[in-house]
């Protein structure tokens, strides 16, 4: 509370400057913005904001990162329970600049979603998709390592702070190197294997994917998440997504297991099961 009041006073004192600056800052549900909010500092006493906690997106980006109307789901019997909820989209300008061949492939992916989406096989979801799947994830922050632990498939990745090390191999979750820009955690992610997707609508990338994520605390319980996507093999220019991430504020919040391998074994190996006579 005290922080908020102090922020308001600063805002009055610099009203003219902030009026311009606020155009570049996304407002949040609480009406605060990164320009006025000062997050608590890390217990490591390194002066950095404390991003520890369990976070979750609350949108339908995992269905389709672009704007979409509700539609019937793929399994007739599941009816209204598992149909597709609408969403305004999280892509800046709602436009993904695919190269012509890639736009065709995106359509093909969408048409063959059940067969091709790596999520269906419980594969690690990659970045940024892991962030906005309908599961919580936990940030475990130290000055040198920040662990992102995702509930889906028990996927995880380590962000190496201020590191110049390169990944020795391509990966599903990418190779993450972080730095602080003011109170924003900026994460540079590369070394992807090109096997992951952005959503269930067939939006995809190649192994040339380069992701820059920005996590900015904008209130006690909200992180603003801004992502730049670059992949010269698939897109004609870099493009952006953004969304708020909300803290799971339940006192007893904890990640539970979603070890989905056992849910997909019949689907993946069922044809190899011994047939009983």
């Amino acid at each position, binding site marked *: 509370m005290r922080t908020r009041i102090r922020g308001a006073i600063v805002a009055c004192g610099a009203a003219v400057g902030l009026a311009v600056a606020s155009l570049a800052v996304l407002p949040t549900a609480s009406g605060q913005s990164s320009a006025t909010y000062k997050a608590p500092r890390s217990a490591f006493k390194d002066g950095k904001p404390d991003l520890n906690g369990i976070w979750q997106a609350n949108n339908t980006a995992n269905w389709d990162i672009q704007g979409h109307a509700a539609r019937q789901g793929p399994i007739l019997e599941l009816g209204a329970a598992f149909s597709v909820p609408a969403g305004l989209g999280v892509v800046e300008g709602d436009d993904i600049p695919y190269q012509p061949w890639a736009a065709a492939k995106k359509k093909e992916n969408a048409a063959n979603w059940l067969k091709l989406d790596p999520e269906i096989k419980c594969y690690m979801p990659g970045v940024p998709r892991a962030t906005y799947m309908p599961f919580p994830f936990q940030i*475990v922050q*130290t000055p040198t390592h920040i*662990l992102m632990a995702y509930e889906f498939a*028990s996927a*995880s990745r*380590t962000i190496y702070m201020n590191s110049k090390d390169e990944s020795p191999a391509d990966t*599903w979750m990418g190779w993450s190197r972080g730095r602080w820009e003011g109170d924003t955690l900026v994460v540079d992610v590369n070394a992807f294997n090109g096997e992951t997707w952005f959503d269930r609508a067939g939006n995809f990338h190649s192994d040339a994917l380069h992701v820059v994520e920005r996590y900015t605390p904008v209130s006690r319980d909200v992180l603003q998440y801004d992502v730049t996507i670059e992949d010269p093999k698939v897109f004609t220019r870099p493009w952006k997504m953004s969304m708020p991430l909300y803290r799971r504020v339940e006192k007893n919040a904890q990640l*539970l297991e979603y070890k989905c*391998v*056992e849910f997909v074994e019949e689907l993946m190996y069922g044809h190899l099961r011994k047939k009983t006579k």
Partner: protein
Amino acid sequence: MAIYEKKPSNFSAAFAFAIVALATATVSGQARNTHDRAQPRTPWGDPDVQGVWSIATITPFERPSALAGKEVLTELEAAELEKTNLTTNNQDRRDGAGTDADVARAYNDFWWDRGTKVVPTRQTSLVVDPPDGRVPALTPEGQKRAADRAARGYDSWEDRSLWERCITRGLPMIPGPYNNNYQILQTPGYVVILHEMIHDARIIPLDGRPHVGQNIRQWFGDSRGRWEGNTLVVDTKNFTDKVSFRGSTKNLHLIERFTRIDRDTVNYEFTIDDPATFTKKWTAAIPMTNTDELIYEYACHEGNYGMVNLLSGARVQEKAAEGGDPAP
């Protein structure tokens, strides 16, 4: 923080001691001992067990019968064992071409990380209690479950182990043939253990909250931690009956203790309490040794060609046995 100079000279350690002592006295004035060389602490005062640790060792889990009655190896015996092991564990040997033993060396030494040393205590087994270094006898119920488990075939993935299915290596942490590295991270209220094997991040709350409800059963159970002096004690319950450690049931109560005994070592002890399976509680002790290695992504399920090949092979063999196409 967890970055320490390894084995500093007495002089530099004493110097660091003086600096830290001064800083503590002037800045916080707290009475807490934050400058104990053997027991580094986090800025908020918990013992600091952070770092990347390996549990690779050639010390056997149970004491071999040849060493019955012997709890500790002499230095000479340990050196002999380490030397012999280099030969027996050598996967780059190419003698015996065409034999199963040679085929089993298809993964050459590059892929293995079994360790080359016995544990520093030179104890003859990782099991330390009971004193004979052997897992206690199974209860009749435990014996029955063990027999059922042994009947493994190739009819489906369900006959195969959780490792082969890429679900989890599970708990407790025991040395394996590879991926023996674990990273411990700490934040106020949590200790987190990142297992390289199948990228499991085990998040342990320290805030005294109760276990989750009885209906929530998990592969890693549900862990709660607390500090007892310099030892992190972790209680884990709520296991699913789909996971089993040496025959344990879903009612297994796993008690783990982590104690940093010097800069390069965290002593890891676990106690298995499952009266339906074992006739008494038992305990193993495994040193975790600091390593400069990083934890890498272990994408197991994503590349599980082994499962497809194993099941396909079994189906081809069956067909051949039925007098169909001969096995290739």
